[in-house]
């Protein structure tokens, strides 16, 4: 739902990069979206196309790399795969899991001319 404003943030990052890296056209945008980051890739695709229209990234290909969620059990130290932002440690049943991966959303790189 907030993917629209996140897509606007993507555009802002692209425009700032265009100024510092000196390019005028973006052909491909690679986003890393963590599985636990509260972003729906399909909604992001839809919003991306709408927001990029009429900009230097109009028509750019959006590539989304979904990174898997992982956590660390604060009770026993086990590394735990996480599909949701909460869960129980498979080793000791503790609910105290600290998310260590898959909660980020970032622009990784751009293919530009």
């Amino acid at each position, binding site marked *: 739902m907030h*993917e*629209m404003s996140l897509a*606007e*943030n993507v555009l802002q990052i692209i425009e700032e990069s265009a100024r510092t890296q000196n390019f005028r056209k973006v052909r491909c945008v690679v986003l890393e979206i963590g599985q636990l980051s509260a972003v729906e890739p399909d*909604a992001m695709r839809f919003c991306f196309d709408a927001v990029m229209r009429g900009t230097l990234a109009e028509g750019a290909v959006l590539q989304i790399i979904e990174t898997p969620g992982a956590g660390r059990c604060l009770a026993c130290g086990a590394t735990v795969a996480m599909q949701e*932002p909460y869960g129980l440690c498979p080793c000791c049943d503790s609910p105290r899991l600290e998310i260590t991966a898959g909660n980020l959303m970032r622009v990784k790189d751009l293919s530009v*001319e």
Partner: protein
Amino acid sequence: MCATCGCGSRDVLIGGRRPARRGGALAFRASGSGTHAHDSANPAQLRIVQVERDLLAKNDEYAGANRRQLAGQGIFALNLVSSPGSGKTTLLVKTIDALNGALPLAVIEGDQQTENDAARIRAAGAPAIQINTGKGCHLDAQMIAQAMQQLDLREDSLLLIENVGNLVCPASFDLGEAHKVVILSVTEGEDKPLKYPDMFRAADLMLLNKCDLLPYLEFDADLAVAYARRVNPDLQVMRISAKSGEGMAEWLEWIRAGCRKAVISKLVEQVE
């Protein structure tokens, strides 16, 4: 426009005025304006630019600046989040009634449309500014920065931010608050925390509101709390009714303690 809820930011009003936004990203481009030539797509000219930037970096910068300003003024700020209809505004009005006079406070109200909530807060005797997010589904830190400027906040005060009624989007946006407080009312489902885990995980305190209605409902309060703690084992919970006053003393004392802590932190910071 967003597929799910149509959110966007072109209709944002803060205190009835259209805010200036830095950077071009927040102004929507009209479809079809600015046509681009696609004739230079020679792959040989393509180069890869490493960016590695978080999508929320800008929001987090504003949130950090808000947090520093609030800390410098000894202000305790709370971000109240819930689904629509949980009783946030009534809770605020009752909180203002109880604290007003003893503790300076101000309110930032977030809604897609109308000044109704800010008017209710002002009628209760507190300065309030309304942010209308238009199609937007959450408040962001830049909106709060602008609203804080207009509010003329008092030193050592309480700032209550009522976010847009929505259990999804506001979870991701840090506003610079000390705590997110999630309000769940007993007229909702017990499993809301499992359905919207990000919000219950982001919150430090859950207010289970409208508890005066429990005798008339099949709502299992213990189960709701258990679900919330499954998502966030450290979540503090208070059972309240803004209407009957049940549990309000505990909530008010929690606020007063937070305000005292904010003032002490400010003084310690000044000494250092």
